[in-house]
């Protein structure tokens, strides 16, 4: 394989929502050289590829950033970093205005004010949100974008990041990138658990199947502290198409009903996890299927829904049309998805300070990759990209990229060449991926067990994931795309191992479905005041319980660096 060595001031891993916005911010505030490595193409990569339907995080008139903090804290039953939520919330409205300047259509009233959806949302046409961001990045002078370069590992020495390694999936090249600061903006992790439709439509999932938890895995392996992986995100979605339901619930006021026509949502509570839990229970107790009640809405609402879904989840519109019945004539069946790890919805991810610095010098995280700060959504990811960008500009002021050790480079190239080399593996990458998803489904609270688990099951999961990690070392790839698939599997296995350790460490059930431990079915006072964090030390996952920072006091663990 060819090798290419590059040097930059700032490396951004993942040219998605947070990554693109970080690049824009750096260009506006400094003349630092920026390199974005994106595994796909920034025009339509990551969460925003199909478009989004609303801006879910905005401080509406009469509300304050603290109001948003309080909302997110309540929804997560206290396990949040208020300092992170507040610093994000303070920037939500400014990044929204910036998006509008970039060309995003946001609904306004006669007086030119944004029209709100509920307390926190704005209505938009978000079909082209990613091309708009990519176009703005394309105009920057000091920013280089390397599309189809998949980053596989960080180079770290003495507690400081020196750069990263990657593989070009079209140019069959091994990249060695040296940088003074690195931003992890690679999103969250899908594909850890067996999906709703494991056959032909296995990738018809909510979260992008191409966000494989690479950033989390790189951080774990480099010894970064991670937080709250046990707070999995399970989405309530339209059956089969896994299309979002918020537009039905908030747009046309559709309530959750069971097969008897009873509105059940009020019985279980209205937090994100309770809405999923209620649906699981109604099905388990024989009152399924569950629906969002759309029957009886107007023809005009029908038409608007068909259009709204084309702008974000076209499969749902196709489903309505194929069935010959509009939403007004047929309630929409709903189900919970497989669990994802996604720091933009729940609080999983890198343990960062208010500057979005991780516990490794020079390494920053933003968006779905960063933990402690749930309910970020699009605007929160932009806000964190902005904060991280400004912090990195400060950090690199007195630094220049240091050389990565030759031996480290050799080891990483050696690993990639081994996967590409001669020899046969008894299994394919696909087979091991399916095995991993089956293990997580059966023993770590997947769809199969109604998202529940106990400690004996987690012990089995841990052992079986360990076996798969060993087997994955023997895999072979014919080209760099297959090599990427091996790395993706290895990333997911690394994340699975940490998820299992975190599920085990939170000895309570704080959130139904998200982390429902049958050995500890109640909430615990002790764990209600603790973050479950972890670091990998000498190959073992070490759990660290940290106190919740009451009243929003900041955790500035990284200021000293």
């Amino acid at each position, binding site marked *: 394989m060819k090798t290419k060595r590059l040097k930059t001031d700032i490396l951004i891993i993942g040219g998605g929502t947070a990554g693109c916005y970080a690049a824009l911010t750096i260009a506006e505030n400094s003349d630092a050289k920026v390199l974005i490595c994106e595994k796909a*193409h920034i025009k339509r990569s990551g969460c925003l590829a199909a478009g989004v339907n609303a801006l879910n995080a905005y401080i509406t008139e009469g509300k304050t950033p603290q109001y948003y903090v309080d909302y997110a804290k309540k929804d997560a039953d206290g396990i949040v970093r208020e300092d992170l939520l507040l610093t994000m919330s303070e920037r939500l409205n400014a990044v929204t205005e910036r998006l509008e300047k970039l060309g995003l259509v946001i609904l306004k009233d006669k007086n030119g004010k944004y029209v709100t959806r509920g307390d926190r949302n704005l*209505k*938009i046409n978000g079909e082209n949100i990613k091309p708009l961001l990519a176009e703005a990045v394309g105009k920057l002078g000091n920013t280089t974008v390397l599309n189809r370069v998949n980053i596989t590992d960080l180079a770290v020495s003495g507690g400081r990041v020196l750069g990263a390694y990657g593989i070009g999936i079209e140019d069959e090249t091994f990249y060695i990138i040296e940088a003074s600061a690195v931003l992890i903006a690679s999103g969250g992790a899908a594909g850890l658990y067996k999906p709703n439709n494991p056959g*032909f439509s296995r990738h018809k999932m909510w979260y992008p199947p191409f966000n494989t938890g690479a950033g989390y895995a790189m951080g774990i392996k480099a010894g970064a502290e991670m937080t709250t992986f046990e707070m999995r995100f399970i989405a309530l979605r339209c059956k089969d198409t896994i299309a979002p339901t918020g537009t039905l619930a908030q747009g046309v006021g559709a309530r959750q009903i069971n097969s008897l026509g009873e509105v059940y949502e009020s019985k279980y509570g209205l937090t994100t996890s309770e809405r999923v839990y209620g649906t699981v229970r109604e099905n388990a107790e024989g009152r399924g299927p569950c629906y969002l009640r759309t029957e009886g809405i107007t023809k005009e609402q029908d038409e608007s829904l068909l259009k709204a879904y084309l702008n974000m989840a076209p499969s749902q519109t196709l489903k309505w049309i194929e069935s010959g019945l509009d939403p007004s004539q047929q309630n929409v069946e709903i189900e919970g998805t497989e669990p994802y790890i996604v720091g933009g919805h729940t609080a999983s991810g890198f343990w960062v300070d208010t500057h979005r610095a991780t516990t490794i010098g020079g390494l920053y995280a933003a968006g779905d990759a960063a933990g402690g700060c749930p309910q970020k959504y699009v605007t929160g990811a932009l806000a964190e990209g902005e904060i991280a960008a400004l912090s990195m500009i400060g950090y690199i002021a007195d630094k220049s990229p240091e050389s990565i050790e030759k031996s480290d480079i050799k080891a990483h190239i050696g690993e990639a060449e081994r996967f590409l080399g001669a020899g046969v593996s008894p299994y394919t990458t696909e087979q091991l991926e399916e095995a991993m998803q089956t293990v997580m489904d059966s023993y770590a609270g997947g769809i199969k067990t109604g998202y529940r688990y106990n400690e004996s099951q987690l012990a089995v999961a841990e052992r079986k994931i360990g076996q798969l990690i060993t087997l994955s070392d023997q895999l072979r790839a014919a080209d760099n795309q297959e090599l990427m698939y091996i790395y993706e599997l290895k990333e997911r296995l690394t994340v699975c191992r940490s998820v299992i350790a975190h599920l085990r460490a939170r000895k309570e059930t704080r959130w139904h479905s998200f982390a429902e431990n049958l050995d500890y079915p109640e909430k615990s006072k002790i764990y209600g005041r603790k973050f479950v964090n972890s670091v990998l030390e000498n190959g073992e996952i070490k759990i660290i319980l940290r106190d919740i920072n009451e009243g929003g006091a900041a955790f500035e663990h990284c200021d000293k660096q």
Partner: protein
Amino acid sequence: MSIAINSEKCIGCGSCKTVCPGSLIKLNGDGKAYIKYPKDCWGCTSCIKECPVYAISFYLGADIGGAGSMLHTEPEGNILQWLIDRPDGSRIEIDIDRRESNKY
């Protein structure tokens, strides 16, 4: 969930291959696009919106209740014209003005 590419229409421009967030589309020896990993398609329709000759359409897999209809879009300026062809030959058209926000 996947897409179908009509190779008679395809002119081999490569735009679909460029935008696919999963790098699933490749060009074959004749320079025509094909989906190399159909089971890995996310159904984001990015490729469909890019194709200058409307050669790509999208369908629901039978495992999630698909019944053979094909969806594609023909963008014209600010209008995204979405077309759904049903197995009985009928066609449904929904136009979306990119300058208009969603109502919900």
